[in-house]
């Protein structure tokens, strides 16, 4: 019975403190117990009533700050874990792409069969064109070769493999490709194949090409998208360079990619 009498009083004293909330925090229980004790002393200690009702402002602030810090820490940990998971998913997707996408089955200018896996471990600069090209393909290939030469001149950089793929399989036979590439660079590799194989590799690299009308000589010009593609040693498409980029700009960009590269393949 007595306890029941005490309890409302204690409750009344503690109400501004919102006791349930207080009890959740580490210091809260101790405070609650302290004020219970004080209230039990109650009637004989009326002077105590002039004491401040709740825990000091600083204490409350400290508790809130600790609680906030705890929440903040949990949030940061969850965010870091999510970021790590996202990175793992991305790495996995890249690994699958490295193996599956952009693969091709073509003949090089020596008649040897080549596929994308042959170039794994090498940086590749790839250009699509045709040997009957009036000016653009020779210019772009010259530029590509200059990039390769600039990078070759720098010690410590891995060699870049230049590749020329034809979009005119009808005319660009293995022999035609051999004649063509020799004018540019000893390591320039020409790739050709059947119409289907060329169509497939062009699709993989999103290269547009369209043979124009034939004239009296049965000569024609193939309209095609113009870009130099950079593939990483994992065989993944890394960057591309249009007509406007100079050899120096391309070389600088390739150097940057080389420095930043981290393989996703085991």
């Amino acid at each position, binding site marked *: 019975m007595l306890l029941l009498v005490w309890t409302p009083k204690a409750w009344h004293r503690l109400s501004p403190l919102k006791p349930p909330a207080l009890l959740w925090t580490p210091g809260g229980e101790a405070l609650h117990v302290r004020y219970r004790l004080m209230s039990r002393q109650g009637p004989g200690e009326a002077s105590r009533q002039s004491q401040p009702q709740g825990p000091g402002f600083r204490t409350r602030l400290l508790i809130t700050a600790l609680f906030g810090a705890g929440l903040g820490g949990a949030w940061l940990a969850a965010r870091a874990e999510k970021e790590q998971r996202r990175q793992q998913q991305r790495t996995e997707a890249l690994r699958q792409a490295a193996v599956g996408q952009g693969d091709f089955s073509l003949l090089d200018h020596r008649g040897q069969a080549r596929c994308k896996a042959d170039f794994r471990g090498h940086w590749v600069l790839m250009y699509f064109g045709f*040997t*009957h090209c*009036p*000016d653009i393909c*020779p210019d772009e290939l010259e530029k590509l070769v200059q990039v390769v030469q600039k990078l070759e001149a720098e010690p410590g950089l891995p060699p870049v493999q230049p590749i020329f793929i034809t979009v005119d399989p009808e*005319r*660009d036979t293995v022999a*035609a490709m051999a*004649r*063509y590439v020799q*004018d540019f660079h000893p390591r320039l590799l020409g790739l050709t194949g059947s119409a289907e194989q060329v169509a497939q590799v062009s699709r993989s690299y999103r290269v547009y090409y369209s043979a124009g009308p034939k*004239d*009296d*000589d*049965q*000569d*024609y*010009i193939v309209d095609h998208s113009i870009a130099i593609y950079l593939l990483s040693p994992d065989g993944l498409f890394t960057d591309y360079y249009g007509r406007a980029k100079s050899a120096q700009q391309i070389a600088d960009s390739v150097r940057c990619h080389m420095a930043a590269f981290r393989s996703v393949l085991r």
Partner: protein
Amino acid sequence: MAAPSMKERQACWGARDEYWKCLDENTEDASQCKKLRSSFESSCPQQWIKYFDKRRDYLKFKEKFEAGQFQPSKTPAKS
């Protein structure tokens, strides 16, 4: 027909550049440059000649355009 070799390409480009220089000097008057024209035509495959002629037209047009000779129409065109 085999593709032109590097030497043949360079010969063709040289002839083209000579012809174009003549045209520049004679304000596109082709009658003044007949000899260079025939030299150009004998150095390059037919397809390339057509291609370079179109390219010349385009470059001239681009010059005019960049010089502001084409004014946008005042009224919106209804197409």
